[in-house]
């Protein structure tokens, strides 16, 4: 017989193993794609790899008009940055408004969340129809931008609500009694304290917009975003070049995540957000 502490550590090992299996399940496909993207010029999209080379990355770089991924990549990046910035501003404002407990804030909350619940294809399609009726030209930097913000905003909003939920409002009040106006108190006290949440909202905005397919499908007009371009290429011909695209963007995402993780870590070292405050 083992004691309950022994069983506890056994449980820990089992759950740990399951977690590792899950992480492998999550990451191995991407790793496989990454590996295949380095296959030789005659290589296919499945194993075995025919030699190793950077051929498909070179292909990616000197692309023809037909399969050039660079313009969609630039569009998607710009779109994601714009969505990220918009999400940050609007979600901080909306969460601040929720703190004020205005009349109908419950309805506002649920309407915001509707953006998460509503199926993307329908939202995109409905939006495209409405724009057509209104005579608005569809384009990735106007219509797609709008419809994507309606998707990314609720995530940023929820993030900011959670952050403000454990925010000690006495700290703001202390600043007011020390002579800070509301704007100064927000700039000097509130914003620095919720900055990790703001960055989180921004990351949501970026990553959700960057790989959004359903909402972009009907709304981009003639110039496609990266997910649409990849999808179109898949329809035409399947080469490891697609894998090279995936690997490249994953690589840049990892760098971005790493950067923000480091920033978080540095900030946590200098600020302890977890205050010993109740209520």
């Amino acid at each position: 017989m083992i004691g309950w502490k022994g069983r506890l550590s056994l449980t820990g090992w089992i759950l740990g193993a399951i977690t590792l299996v899950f992480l492998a399940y999550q990451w191995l496909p991407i790793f496989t794609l990454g590996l295949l993207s380095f296959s030789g010029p005659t290589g296919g999209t499945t194993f075995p790899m025919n030699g190793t080379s950077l051929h498909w990355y070179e292909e990616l770089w000197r692309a023809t008009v037909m399969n050039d991924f660079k313009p969609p990549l630039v569009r998607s990046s710009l779109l994601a940055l714009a969505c990220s910035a918009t999400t940050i501003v609007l979600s901080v404002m909306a969460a601040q408004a929720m703190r004020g407990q205005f009349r109908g804030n419950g309805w506002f909350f649920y309407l915001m969340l509707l953006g998460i619940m509503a199926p993307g294809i329908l939202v995109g399609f409905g939006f495209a129809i409405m724009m057509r009726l209104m005579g608005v030209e569809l384009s990735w930097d106007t219509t797609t931008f709008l419809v994507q913000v309606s998707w990314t905003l609720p995530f940023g909003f929820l993030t900011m609500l959670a952050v403000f939920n454990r925010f000690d409002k006495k700290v703001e009040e202390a600043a007011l009694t020390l002579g800070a106006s509301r704007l100064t108190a927000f700039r000097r006290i509130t914003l620095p304290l919720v900055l990790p949440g703001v960055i989180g909202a921004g990351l949501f905005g970026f990553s959700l917009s960057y790989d959004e397919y359903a909402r972009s499908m009907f709304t981009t007009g003639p110039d496609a975003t990266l997910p649409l371009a990849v999808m179109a290429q898949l329809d035409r011909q399947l080469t490891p070049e697609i894998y090279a695209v995936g690997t490249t963007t994953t690589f840049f995402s990892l760098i971005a995540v790493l950067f923000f993780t480091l920033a978080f870590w540095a900030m946590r070292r200098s600020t302890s957000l977890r205050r010993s405050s109740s209520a």
Partner: protein
Amino acid sequence: MDALAHDPVEGAAAPAHARPQLDLELINIRKRYGDFTAVDGVSLKVSKGQFVCLLGPSGCGKTTTLRCIAGLEEPDGGDVLIGGKEATRDPPWQRDIAMMFQDFALFPHMTVAKQVGFGLEMLKKPRAEIAQRVQHILKSFEIDGLADRKPASLSGGQRQRVALARAMITEPRILLLDEPIGALDYSLRETVMLELKLLQQRTGISFIWVTHDQNEAFSLGDLVVVMNHARIEQQGPPEEILQRPATAFVAGFVQGNNVFRGRVKEVLAGMLRIETPVGMFLVPWVAPPPMLGSEVSFSVRAEQLTDALSERHVNRLSAVCTAVEYFGAVRRHVFERSDGEVLKYDQFGAHAARIVPGQRTVLGWPAEAAVLHAGAGQ
């Protein structure tokens, strides 16, 4: 009354200035949250450099009153005058006040030096002056070694000092303190209380101190304001509140009072004969005397009772002792009255114990020891 501290703007008699300026005046402050009345008709005058304690149970409106003074809440009615100037609608940042919060509300992302200088920064003082004044106040509060630390790495006592330094550095007219030592270890409180009292006397800044702890209120306050259910029950110097509680609530809230409720049976010369569920008692009245048959309450302090009776002790009561607590200077006996209420009897001085738990004893007190309450019998 504080004529010395008053502006020396005189020469001829200045009738407009005849009244000594008050640091704070509250006139009939009212504040409601939906159906809940938090503050109801609170009026208060604080003269220059006064130490005022707002005392009351939680939810009595003392903190809301304080927040109305700070400008963090806007009263629904009434006026707030700070330094004689109308300030009811002024935002907090335009008021000549500072506030210390219960859990100190330090800025977690700023170093001690930075946040102590925050108030001066808001006043747009030059950088060099801020640095110098911060240095000075940190030194005088003996926390200059902590200047570069963040709040998370400070102990409770150190945080309290930082919060105080941050509030005091701009030398406000009034310092508002919301349970300022409630978050400290019990062993620290006595020391900190004494320090704060000395600081207040030295600086001449008016302190308005909110607490539910009567020891704090009575040992610190020049003026103690007892609140209950959004209203002021009584205000006055500590001695007055301890010796002459004005209402049954105050008598019951302040430690060491025995409260009795009954009906006026007879009005004599200077005395009432009051019938209570536990007997008839003589209680002196102050003008105007209550009506015959009206409901009244009165209280007797626990140390005014005795079990060594003489003919002076005209009010007598028999009760069963349930517990004896010994505090060194005082031995407190807890009795149960025949109506189930508690009766307390304090015996001062190191006398030998005379009463043991379970014993039935007759206790008495002289008629003049009882205090009749106003706001009859509620």
